[in-house]
């Protein structure tokens, strides 16, 4: 997986059925990428439900969070609505898993993204990355520690 200090590779993925997001559009903000295996699976839902509640804490650090999985944009839409999610889920759907592979967090065997986190600074450089065992929800403490460290090092 890509490590701290490396430039975060550019990508463009669907965030809604008719709208794409480019990573470079978020330059000037910190970006949290949360790759996860699948919509609807129990551990992911807990993880995303947690981030849904910590948005305010991310916002204090001028940070935007994006979830990424190989699910389709319509699947994401249904999942977002069902879980009341207030942040975007990106569809790494076509070609399947291309962005996950680019970041070195694709699980070839399952055909899913690994459960991995990246914190990217305002200039698009990776400040922190972490891959969690698939069955374990990594929480938000590592993300917040990384965001805090970015503020200290300025």
């Amino acid at each position, binding site marked *: 997986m890509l490590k701290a200090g490396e430039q975060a590779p550019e990508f463009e993925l669907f965030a809604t059925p008719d709208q794409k997001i480019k990573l470079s559009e978020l330059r000037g903000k910190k970006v949290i990428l949360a790759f996860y295996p699948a919509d609807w699976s129990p551990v992911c839902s807990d993880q995303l439900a947690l981030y849904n509640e910590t948005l305010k804490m991310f916002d204090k650090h001028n940070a935007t969070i994006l979830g990424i999985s190989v699910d389709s944009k319509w699947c994401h839409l249904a999942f977002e609505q069902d879980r009341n999610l207030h942040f975007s889920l990106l569809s790494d759907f076509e070609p399947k898993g291309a962005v996950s592979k680019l970041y070195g967090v694709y699980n070839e065997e399952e055909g899913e993204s690994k459960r991995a986190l990246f914190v990217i600074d305002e200039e698009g450089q990776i400040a922190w990355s972490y891959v969690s065992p698939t069955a374990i929800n990594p929480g*938000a403490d590592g993300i917040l520690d990384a965001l805090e460290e970015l503020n200290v090092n300025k």
Partner: protein
Amino acid sequence: MSLKPAVTETDHRQGNGSASLTIVEYGDYQCPHCGKAHPVIKEILDTFGDQVLFVFRNFPLQESHPYATIAARATEAAALQDKYWEMHDAIFEFQSQLNEEFLFSLAERLELDLDQFREDITSAEVKEKVENDFESGVRSGVNGTPSFFVNDNKFDGDATDLFNVLKESGN
């Protein structure tokens, strides 16, 4: 992962303040797993009595559980009238009936000053207490509810696992 901040005077505590074993639960009043954990925690407290200090901190997942935050505030408002644990227990015991109206009927049953309760439940102080609990949980690595900490270290398991570990180490 460890507890940040450690247990302080502002926490709601039950049991023996100088016990060698401190259990901290981060919980959500509308979370069914927390509801299931509640009688197990009671049993732990009954079994180990003076050997344990139990602390509850609020971790409402508001977007998943629409009554979680108001319930947490209700316990904090009850605490201002010295009825924290009574409210805490009552909400978990009647969890399936939880809604805003029900919290007020509990307040009435606990003979709280209802005008005061109504004022406190929306006060900045109570709101902040619940938010601070939540933030401390996030910073301590809480990733869902209930999450338990034993002597400041995150415990990997549910209340029943915790009870079993305590029983084994007690013998």
